[in-house]
C-alpha cells in the first residue's frame, strides 16, 4: 500500500502518491496543466517548458518534477500564464505555422494551446521562417519539418514503442532539426501501424498523412469543439482517486 500525501496547487489540496510527477498528480485530480511535449504513454522529457510551474518557489517542468509532500505549487497565476504565452509564442514564431493553410488546423495542439492561453494579438517578436525541404518521399506521409515544434514525441514513440529510431535530432541550438534514419523518410523503416506515425503523436502538422486530407471538415475537429485539456478537467479525477484510496 502506498501512502498518499498532499501537494498544494494554487491553494487547493491535491492528493499525490510517491513517484508521481506534479503533472500526474494534477491530472488525476482533474487539474490541467498546459503541455505540448508530454503525451500519454511516452516518457516525459520537459523540453517545451509549457508546463512550467513554481514548485516551492523554483520554476520546474511539472511533467518531470516529482511531487513532494506539502509542496506549494503555483500554477494558474498571472506570471506562470505569461511564461506559457511567451513559450507558445516562441514556438509559433520559430516554425511556419500558417493555420489556414495547414491540414492540422483544428486538431493542432499548438494552435489549440494558443487559443487556450489567449494568444490572439500580434506581438513584437519576429518570425524566423525556416525553409527546410519538404520530405514527400514516403507513400503514406509527408514530413514538413518547418512545422516541427521539437516535442520529440515521434522520436520517443519510434524508439520506445516501435523499437525503430526512425527519427532523431541533428544539429544544435536554433539549427537543430528533425532528421530521419536515412536520406529520406522513404528510406526508413517507417510503416503503417507505427505508433510514431499515428494520430496524436505529432501535435502539429509536421507529420501529415497523405491521401486523406480534411476527412474531418474544419469546424468539426477536436479542438473546434473543445478546449485543449478539457478531457482532463472533465474527468472525475478526485472521485477516482478516493475510490482507489478506499480500496
Amino acid at each position, binding site marked *: 500500500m502506498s501512502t498518499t500525501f498532499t501537494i498544494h496547487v494554487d491553494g487547493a489540496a491535491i492528493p499525490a502518491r510517491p513517484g508521481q510527477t506534479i503533472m500526474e498528480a494534477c491530472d488525476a485530480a482533474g487539474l490541467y496543466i498546459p503541455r505540448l511535449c508530454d503525451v500519454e504513454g511516452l516518457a*516525459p*522529457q*520537459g*523540453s*517545451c*517548458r*509549457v508546463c*512550467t510551474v513554481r514548485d516551492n518557489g523554483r*520554476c520546474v*517542468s511539472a511533467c*518531470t*518534477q*516529482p511531487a513532494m509532500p506539502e509542496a506549494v505549487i503555483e500554477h494558474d497565476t498571472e506570471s506562470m500564464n*505569461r*511564461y506559457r504565452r*511567451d*513559450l507558445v509564442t*516562441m*514556438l509559433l*514564431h*520559430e516554425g511556419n505555422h500558417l493555420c489556414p493553410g495547414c491540414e492540422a488546423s483544428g486538431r493542432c495542439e499548438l494552435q489549440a494551446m494558443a487559443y487556450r492561453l489567449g494568444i490572439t494579438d500580434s506581438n*513584437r*517578436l*519576429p518570425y*524566423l*521562417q*525556416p*525553409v*527546410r525541404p519538404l520530405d514527400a518521399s514516403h507513400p503514406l506521409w509527408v514530413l514538413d*519539418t518547418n512545422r516541427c515544434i*521539437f516535442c520529440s514525441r515521434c522520436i520517443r514513440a519510434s524508439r520506445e514503442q516501435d523499437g525503430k*529510431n526512425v*527519427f*532523431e*535530432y*541533428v*544539429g*544544435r*541550438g*536554433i*539549427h*537543430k*532539426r528533425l*532528421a*530521419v*534514419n*536515412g*536520406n529520406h523518410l522513404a528510406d526508413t523503416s517507417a510503416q503503417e501501424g507505427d505508433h510514431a506515425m499515428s494520430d496524436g503523436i505529432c501535435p502539429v502538422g509536421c507529420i501529415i498523412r497523405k491521401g486523406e486530407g480534411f476527412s474531418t471538415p474544419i469546424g468539426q475537429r477536436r479542438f473546434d469543439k473543445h478546449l485543449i485539456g478539457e478531457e482532463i478537467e472533465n474527468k472525475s479525477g478526485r472521485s477516482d482517486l478516493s475510490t482507489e484510496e478506499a480500496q
Partner: protein
Amino acid sequence: MTTPQAATDYATDIVKNACRQYNNDASRMMDILWCVQDALGGIDTDAMTVIAQQTSGYRVEVEGVVSFYSFFSSQPRPQVVRIYLCEDVIDQHAGIAEVAAVFERTLGIRIGQTSADIPVELHWTPCIGLSDQAPAALINFRPFTRLTPDKAEALARAILAGIAVHELPIGEGEGNNSKPLINVEVANNLRLPGAVYFAPHRPLSGLDNAGRLSPAQVRHEIRQAGLRGRGGAGYPVWKKWEAAATTASERRFVICNADEGEPGTFKDRLLLTEKADLLFEGMTIAAYAVGASEGILYLRAEYRYLHAWLNHLLLERRRQGLLGKAIRGMENFDFDIRIQLGAGAYICGEESALISSCEGRRGEPKTKPPFPAQAGYLGYPTVVNNVETLCAIPAILSRGSQWFAGLGTEQSSGTKLLSVSGDCSRPGVYEVPLGISVKEVLTLAGGVDAQAVQVGGASGEMIGVADFGRSLCFEDLPTAGAIMIFNGQRNLLSIVHYFMRFFVDESCGYCTPCRVGNVFLLQAVEKIMKGLGEAQDIESMRQLSETIIATSRCGLGHTSPNPVLSSLKHFPLVYSSLIRENAKGMQAGFDLEQALATARAIVRRPAEVLQCEVRLQPADAHASDRLTGVLAYPLIARSGLDDYTVPKVDSTDDPSAHQEDAES
C-alpha cells in the same frame, strides 16, 4: 593509383578499426568519432552508417552526435589543416579581424567556406582559453598566440608551402608548455600565486592524510573547509560527495570538468599545464571519499594540445602505484582515470550535459532529478567537480580544513583563481582570497581606464565604475573567475551582442526558451544597434529575459540573458542613446527599406536572394536546413549566424550619427 572502390574500402576499414578499438561500444562514440576524423579528416554519412552498424545503433543517431559538436566535420578531408580563429570579444579588441583578413587573403579562402583547391579551412570559434594572449588561434588544435598580421602571413605561407602543423615556427612556451609532449608557444601568465593552488605542496601529502581517515571523515573535512564548487555555481562540494557516497551502487564515478568554456576563462588551462599532478591527487582523494573506482577527465577539445602530456602523467602515476589497484597500499582502494576529449560545445560544461557527452551522446543536459550524484554517468552515482575545485582538495587534506576555512570570507572560503583579460597591462591568472574587490583586481592587473568589467564571463554580470567596490565572492559577485576589462573605447553594446550570439550558437536547443528566446533577444539587441529600437523594446527585452531565465531547463538559459539585463541595469544610457521616439505614429522599428528588400530581390534581383541563402549556411554546415537570408533571419543574416565576420554593425560604431538623425 587507388580506385574509388579501394578508397571506400580503406575508409571502411579505418572506421571499423576505430569502432573495434573501443569494443564497438556506442558509449565511447566521442572517441570513435575523433579516431575516424583524425584519420579521414571528417565523418561522412558512409562512415556514420558503418559506425551505426558496428555499434548496433542507427545512422541518424550518429549523425545527431556528429552534428552537435562544432569540431566534428561531416566532410572527410585527409591531411586537412583546420585553422580556428578565436572570435571572442577580447580577441576582437586585440585585432583578430586584421589577422583573419590576412589569413583569408594569403590562403585565398574565405572563413567558413571550404575550398577544393587547397586542403586548408578557416573557421571562427568562440573563446579557446587564451584571452590573456589574444588574438589567438588553433591550427589543428595547436595554439598560436599573440597573432599579428605579419605573423599570420608567415603562418599562412608556411602552411601553403606544405610545412606540417607541428613544424610551424613558434615562440618559446613558458614552463611545461615547452616540454616536447606539449611544445606550444603558450605563456602561463601566472601573475600572482596564492595560498592554495600555487603555494608549495608536498606531493601526496593530501592523499596520504586522506588515507589515514575514513571516507566519511574526508567528506567531513571538506565540509568543515567550506569548499564550494569553483565552476561558478558555488554548490557545496561535500553535498555532492555525500549524495554520491550514500547512494547504494556497485560503481561510482568521479569526473573532472575540464570543459572550461566560459568566454574569458583560462585558469584551468594553467592548472592542467602546471598542476595536473595536484588535480589527479585531488581526483584520487575524491574517489576515496565517495567510494569511486573510476574517474574521467573531460578535456575540452580546445585543450587537446595537453592531451598527450596528461596521458603521460597518468601513465607515470600508474607506474608509481598512484593509480590502479590498492593505491598507496590501501587495500580495497582501486582507482583509475581516463581522459575523455570533448569536441566543441560550451553546454558540456554543464555537469549533466558533460555526462551525456561522456556517454557518447549529444551534449544535452539530463532531466533533474535524478541528480548526477544519485544517477549520473551510465546511471551510476557520479561526482562532477571543476578542475580548480579538485585542485584545492589536496591542500585542504594536507593543511587542514581550519586553515582553508580561514582564507576568504565567511561563506566563501579559500582562494580563487581569476582569469584577467582585456584592457589591462598585466593579463593573466591571479590567485586571490575570495572577497577581493573588483577595484583591487583592476589595480593588480593594471586596468587603469576601465569603463566596464565583465565579471564571470558571458554568463556573468557587466558592471560599471560605480560597482568596482564590490567583492568577488558568493555573497556578492559570484564568479567562475573570468574578469574581462573594457576601457572607454569599447562599444559595450557590441560586446553584449557578441555574448548573445555566443549563447545562440551554444544553446543545445533542447528546450524552447533557450533555443528560441535567445535568438529573439539577440535580434532585439541588433534592432537597437541599428537605431531602430523603441522604448517598448526595452521592456519587452526585460520580459523575454525573465521568461528565458525562469523557464529554461539548465544553467545556460538561466544565465544567457545576463549580458542584456546587467548592461541595461548598469549602462542604461548605452541603450537610451540609441532608442528613438515614435514619430507621427510611425513605428520606429519598421525599416521600410528592409521590408521592401525581399520583394525587390524577388522581382528584379534574384541573384541577391540566392547569395543570401548561401551566406546563411552555418560555417560548418552539419545542419542541412536552410534558414534563408532575407526571408528568414533578416537581422542575423547581416551580423550574426551567417558569415561569422567579427561584428561590424555600422549603426553603433558611430552612435552620434543617430542622435543627429533624431535631432534633425
